[in-house]
């Protein structure tokens, strides 16, 4: 549209309206309200439609960013959403949860000088996806003719949903097996409602079902069926394992099993999936801490702390070994947490959790840390300061220092190769050591991001299609069928 680059440059980044901190820290409603169409168009005009599309190379699935933004500038919102969906099937989710500042927006030319001035790609992505969904403009893909092959997908997290969506459109019969009574993986049990409303995930799953994907809930593979049985008894031609990394790590310090010490997984699952923030209408109980310590500095820690505040904690503190700059959490989450009066006790780590005679947490003994030499990741390594301890007053401790590979499947299917940490080993396309078994997402990479799990799903879907078609051509050739 007729704007000059200079005119575009003159437009300030459009901030999204959001619930004020004092209001939102008492409810579970989503924090940002989303752009209005005017704001979206205005934001879209900031994009310079660069020749060298650095933003695109920052996105793990290479969403055609300048193209979809140009469509927004022309108010073609639905078309913009469709363009994104050629690469990313869950834009309403990714627009909300991608760490944009280190991915697409981190590479945007407009953020080179001042990173707060990058084009708000995530906000725009969210806007068009919401616009399309809320106005019921989602295009119903035609259910293609079945090609006769059956694929089982284990786990309904973002990677499993992507595989299912891609393969159903190619004519496969797709069945998802999900351990929980609800689908979405971390999107429903981990990431809280105030960051990602569950109705968005539900509508994505409904859309897959409308295309013919069958979902069996309450189905723990490895126990209900072993992978061998999926092939032999149930006649699947390929299996995709997208079970996530969910196995919590606890610190090896005294007091870890006291009442009031939770893994973030447990705490968040109670609150999100089981809706104990609506207790007693929903019957899963939750222990409400008064002074809550959250161990860790990632998204999981921020989500736990912000949930604790909303459940009624008087004081919530992030206790983290490293410094503020080194926190792996999305910048927006740290910013929101600070606004919500969550405190940060940096460069410190507990060495013991104290309890009373009934086994309840009464406080922690912590040690001060300082930054030392850089480690393999290039971050300065936190090292404990000798003889430098302090007491920390708290009655609840939420442990969110990371996860491990859940061994439920690999134990029951020993012929799938795993690495020394228990993660499944695959080639670039998700092929495991066993023929026609594929895997991707957190169970391959360790805890990562929604978009990378989806990217892995997309690649594996391609590999499954390629391998099964090759197989079918070969058999047709051999048998002259």
């Amino acid at each position, binding site marked *: 549209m007729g704007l000059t680059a200079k005119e575009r440059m003159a437009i300030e980044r459009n901030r999204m309206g959001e619930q004020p901190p004092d209001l939102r820290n008492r409810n579970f409603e989503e924090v940002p309200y989303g752009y209005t169409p005017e704001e979206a168009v205005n934001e879209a005009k900031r994009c310079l439609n660069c020749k060298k599309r650095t933003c695109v190379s920052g996105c793990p699935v290479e969403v055609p960013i300048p193209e979809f933004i140009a469509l927004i500038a022309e108010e073609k919102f639905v078309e913009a959403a469709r363009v994104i969906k050629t690469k990313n099937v869950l834009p309403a989710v990714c627009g909300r949860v991608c760490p944009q500042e280190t991915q697409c927006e981190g590479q945007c030319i407009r953020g080179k000088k001042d990173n707060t001035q990058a084009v708000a790609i995530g906000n725009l992505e969210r806007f068009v996806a919401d616009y399309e969904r809320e106005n019921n403009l989602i295009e119903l893909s035609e259910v293609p003719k079945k090609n006769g092959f059956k694929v089982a997908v284990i786990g309904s997290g973002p990677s499993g949903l992507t595989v299912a969506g891609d393969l159903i459109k190619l004519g496969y019969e797709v069945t998802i097996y999900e*351990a*929980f*009574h609800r689908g979405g993986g971390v999107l429903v049990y981990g990431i809280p409602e105030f960051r990602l409303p569950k109705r968005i995930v539900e509508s994505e799953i409904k859309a897959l079902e409308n295309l013919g994907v069958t979902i069996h*809930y*309450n*189905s*723990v593979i490895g*126990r*209900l*069926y072993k992978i061998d049985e999926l092939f032999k008894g149930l006649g699947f031609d390929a299996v995709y394992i997208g079970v996530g990394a*969910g*196995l*919590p790590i*606890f610190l090896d310090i005294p007091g*870890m*099993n006291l*009442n*009031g010490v*939770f*893994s973030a*997984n*447990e705490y968040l*699952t*109670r609150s999100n999936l*089981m*809706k104990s923030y609506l*207790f*007693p*209408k*929903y*019957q*899963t*109980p*939750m*222990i409400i801490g008064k002074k809550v310590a959250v161990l860790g500095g990632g998204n999981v820690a921020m989500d736990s702390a912000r949930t604790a505040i909303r459940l009624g904690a008087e004081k919530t503190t992030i206790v983290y070994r490293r410094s503020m700059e080194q926190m792996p959490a999305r910048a927006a989450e740290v910013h929101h947490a600070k606004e919500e009066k969550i405190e940060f006790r940096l460069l410190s780590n507990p060495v013991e959790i104290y309890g009373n005679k*009934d*086994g*309840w947490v009464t406080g922690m003994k912590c040690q001060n840390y300082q930054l030392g030499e850089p480690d393999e990741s290039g971050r300065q390594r936190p090292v404990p300061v000798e003889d430098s301890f302090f007491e920390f007053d708290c009655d609840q401790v939420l442990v969110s220092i990371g996860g491990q590979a*859940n*061994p*439920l499947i690999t134990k029951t299917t020993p012929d799938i190769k795993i690495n020394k940490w228990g993660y499944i080993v695959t080639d670039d396309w998700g092929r495991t050591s066993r023929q026609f078994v594929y895997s991707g997402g957190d169970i391959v990479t360790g805890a990562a991001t929604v978009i990378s799990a989806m990217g892995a799903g997309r690649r594996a879907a391609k590999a499954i299609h390629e391998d099964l078609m090759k197989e079918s051509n070969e058999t047709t050739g051999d048998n002259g069928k």
Partner: protein
Amino acid sequence: MFEIVEKSEVFNVHKIVVKAPGIARAVRAGQFVIIMGAEYSERIPVTVSDWDAAAGTIVLYVLEVGISTLELARMKVGDSLFAVTGPLGVPSEIKNYGTVVLGGGCYGIGGIYPIAKACKEAGNKVISIIEARYKDMFYNEKALMEVSDKLLYATSDGSKGTKGKVEDVVYEMLEQGQKIDQAFFMGCTQMLERCSEATRSNSIPTKVALNSIMLDGTGMCGACRVSVGGQIKFACVDGPEFDGHEVDWNELHSRKAAYAEQETGVYQSYSHECMAEKKFKQELERG
């Protein structure tokens, strides 16, 4: 899905037969399921006490102790459970031990049945011991008798068998010089602890089916963690059966009481008194 096809009650223990064909096909002795009565319910673990793979049904014995079990108790034949997930946990290790003693209290009276049956089929001499307050509170006796070489009773009031509890029968057996090669116990935590004490001095290998608080049942949350031999174990995936002589019982007792306050809130009549006993007393008062 998960339709209730049969239901009955003996003093607060509700037998619930549920349609769950996949589980009925895959389940082994010692495993459990996690169930939700309704969409708003808590996820609660319940032992699979019997199954019929051909009919596609599983048998649960649910002891009414709180809000979730109360709501299950009120469901009727024809109603459906919202969720039944399983089979979960590691199956009991079944082999020819020689003489196996199985002790069951409250829901464990039903729960030890498949273990007894499998042990019997593996060629063991099976001695089952069940405890209750009063003789009329036993259930599932006939089935248990069929798979046991001996079925012994313990009642608090002495109305049947030994006056006392399962561990008292174990002590009697040991005094009489009865050889025991392996013991399994299932019931409330207090009973598991006392029975493990009984077998400790003779170093009888003892497995106890722990019932720590659970949430997902797949190893994802750590709610069910227990200390066994000084190590953290997740009861849902590493157990539920553990060496009774290695369990940190004090920790387990306190972890099990973690939600007592909230639970009491929703289930006003909850008390530390055994609910089965309470109901029994009410029945007596009514005559």
